């Protein structure tokens, strides 16, 4: 039983890590309808900034946790107001091309600034210990990530369901014309949502960096994983993204435990099965 319990903790912790990485993308796609292929790059930049901030002292991790997401949010502001805005009337294909181009640009900029070596972000001593559960050692930080994921999910849920801002955002999701009819500046809403998406991407980068490390092309790997989570959960649903993250975390962990040869196959297999059975994802609304 212990081993099942331990794998359960592994799965939940990995799942919540996925949620932290993905929720920004889910928000942006859900509300703007923009498939942001540069999401992985924003995540990467967050992680690299965290590296730069912590390279001299691990205690700076907390500073990094503030600076990096804000820096990425500013970058998002720049992207949204200068480039992305131009594509709202051009449609999905142009957005694919634009954000893919941005991903390419950021890829080279990152390797220019931070090189192509494998790097990690070290944790402050308060987080770097181990905790024993189910007769097995776990890095304390993994358990912290579970907490962060839960808090983030709760906060996003609260904002979306219980605040005026959330109401506007949900309205924007259903009908962009309607909220501009209500006298709300739709452009501003879109900009702010994209900035929040960027902030969350940067935040995910900092949180994930000590576990996943930093290396060239990390952003593309993250991007695909995030897209899978997004789709399985269903577009435009934070709850769906949350459920999908946990589901993938558990499925991946247990498939690695029970049938390791299939693990590469399994995540995409899971996505295919879910889409065929539920064409709009677990909890998604219909989006054309």
């Amino acid at each position: 039983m212990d081993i099942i319990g331990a794998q359960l903790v592994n799965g939940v912790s990995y799942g919540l890590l996925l949620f932290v990485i993905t929720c920004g993308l889910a928000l942006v796609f859900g509300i703007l309808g923009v498939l942001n292929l540069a999401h992985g790059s924003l995540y990467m930049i967050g992680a690299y900034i965290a590296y730069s901030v912590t390279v001299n002292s691990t205690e700076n991790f907390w500073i990094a946790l503030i600076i990096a997401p804000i820096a990425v949010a500013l970058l998002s502001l720049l992207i949204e107001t200068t480039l992305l805005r131009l594509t709202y009337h051009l449609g999905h294909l142009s957005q694919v091309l634009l954000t893919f181009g941005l991903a390419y640009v950021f890829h080279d900029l990152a390797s220019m600034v931070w090189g192509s070596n494998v790097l990690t972000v070290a944790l402050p001593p308060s987080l770097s210990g181990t905790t024993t559960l189910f007769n097995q050692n776990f890095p304390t930080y993994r358990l912290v990530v579970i907490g962060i994921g839960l808090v983030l999910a709760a906060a996003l849920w609260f904002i979306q369901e219980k605040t005026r801002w959330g109401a506007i955002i949900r309205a924007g999701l259903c009908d962009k014309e309607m909220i501009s009819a209500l006298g709300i500046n739709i452009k501003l809403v879109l900009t702010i949502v994209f900035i929040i998406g960027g902030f969350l991407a940067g935040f995910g980068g900092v949180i994930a960096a000590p576990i996943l490390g930093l290396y060239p092309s990390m952003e593309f790997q993250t991007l695909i994983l995030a897209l899978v989570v997004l789709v399985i959960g269903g577009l435009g649903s934070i709850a769906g993204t949350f459920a999908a993250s946990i589901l993938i975390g558990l499925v991946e962990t247990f498939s690695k435990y029970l049938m390791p040869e299939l693990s590469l196959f399994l995540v995409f297999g899971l996505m295919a099965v879910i889409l065929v059975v539920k064409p709009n994802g677990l909890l998604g609304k219909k989006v054309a």
Partner: protein
Amino acid sequence: MKGNHSIKFLFIFLLMALSPFFLSLFHLNLLIEILILGIFALSLNLLVGYTGLVSLGHAAFFGIGAYASGIVAKELSPNLIATLPVSLLVSILVSSIIGMFCMKVSGFYFLMLTLAFSQMIYSFIHQSTDLTGGTNGLSGIPSPQLGGVDFSNPVFLYYLILLIFAAVFTGLSVLVRSPFGQVLIGIRENETRMKSMGYNTTLYKYSSFIIAGALGGVAGSLYTNFNGFISPSDVYWTMSGSVLIMVIIGGAGTMAGPVLGAGLIVILETIVSSYTNMWMLIIGVIFILFVVFFPKGIVGIGNSLVNNLAKSKPLYNESKPEAVYKKDA
């Protein structure tokens, strides 16, 4: 107009036919590669540009065609009579199976479902080391033959591929202008309306998916025949992404666009990366410039140039729409 077109076609044909006489071997090889990827991009364009189904898993069919061809050439015979039809059949088979599932979803979910299937095929190729060589790829594939002609000479191979390219290009041009192709365009524009007109749109989309898959398989097969090698990286989602970029940057929903897009990407990648390690930066900036300045792709640039030159000819006769009703008022 008609005669003018034929002359232009003849001119292009002549230019292409004479290419081996003035192009260096390296550039000829590059041209072959462009033609093959051109077929690949054209096949995706049927789906993306004409039917309005954006797929991010088209590399699956390329890979299936390529591996089928490679395995047949190694195990059975490198004769094109064997390799090409097998690739075609296998890719039709696989695309009809995948298509069946993908028809159930639409929009972004379609994009992701095609991605899921292509990644599963990638995993399969990646894992079945005995059949496909796994990560090392399938190498040492003998060069193609046809009726006693050995195509290890790139010039012969060029003519062969040029011929196939011309056939595919002509065939697709006719197809998209045919009533069938017009229905696909109708679906791209407004699927609900097409259903109300009595069209079984699912069937049309499905046919389009299979044709695209089959031609993707042909492109893959030619690629293997040309390179004597195929590796899983050509089945990975990045390959699907880059062919999608070729279509978009060339101009989706046009015949010339995807081919020009393939040419641009291949040339850019080859040339830029010879001069700088920062080639991704440069290509990325070019993508962004396209979005900002030429959202209709290369063909769009060309068209606006032509339009500017011939400003005197308006596209449509402007007449007052109200006129019709006045008489009855």
